[in-house]
């Protein structure tokens, strides 16, 4: 199935862990539209869910910045591109003291995705991921 460059979906959620599952469902639905196999769909679901969980979770966010929505933008073109944007400055580096009971917060995403970047832009933090579509 071919997609035009304009095919894009945007979802914004409040900083509520209960809403992360909703984003995962949307991400899986978008990934399924690409016509890739279920392993690909599962990877997108995991990556987007993980990114949102970390953005929503207080462990990676400065205490004074735990407000504002988390926005997920997915675009289909030559690649599936996903941007997860959070208000506030999410800590972008794994720190020994930031472990979630011994699991480095960003380790899963870094290991899962080849094209992965996280950066602070003004008053927001942007996590960008993309996958080739074959």
């Amino acid at each position, binding site marked *: 199935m071919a997609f035009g460059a304009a095919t894009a979906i945007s979802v914004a959620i409040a900083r509520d*862990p*209960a809403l*992360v*599952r909703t984003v*995962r469902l949307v991400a899986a639905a978008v990934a399924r539209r690409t016509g890739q196999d279920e*392993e690909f769909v*599962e990877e997108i*679901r*995991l990556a987007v*869910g*993980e990114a949102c*969980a*970390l953005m*929503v*979770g207080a462990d990676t966010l400065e205490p004074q910045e735990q407000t504002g929505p988390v926005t997920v933008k997915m675009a289909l073109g030559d690649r599936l591109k996903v941007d997860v944007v959070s208000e506030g400055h999410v800590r972008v580096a794994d720190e020994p003291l930031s*472990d*979630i*009971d*011994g*699991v480095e*917060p960003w*380790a*899963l995403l870094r*290991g*899962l995705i080849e094209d992965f970047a996280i950066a602070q832009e003004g008053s927001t933090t942007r996590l960008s991921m993309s996958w080739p579509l074959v």
Partner: protein
Amino acid sequence: MDLSLETRHADGHTIIEVGGEIDVYTAPKLRDKITELVSNGEYHLVIDMEKVDFLDSTGLGVLVGGLKKVRAHDGSMRLICNQERLLKIFRITGLAKVFAIHSSQADALAEH
């Protein structure tokens, strides 16, 4: 799908059969269950993940935390998992070497 937890006992172990999604929202429920069991003196746990549909790093953190809790009492925590999508997560994070992961309850209970 929410998280379901069913507990039973077999061969000196406490088996927690987990179903549904272990994520940033539901993981505290699993953490509370493990904490409750350890508080009751149950230090040999088997976590059956065959009906788990999703696992993120928050869930992994709860499992690692549980492992630390039981080891503090010379206990053990074994996992039952056959699903490749979950096993991949354990491999990526290096936790496949930390946990004893078994393919069935019989295997998990047979190892002493």
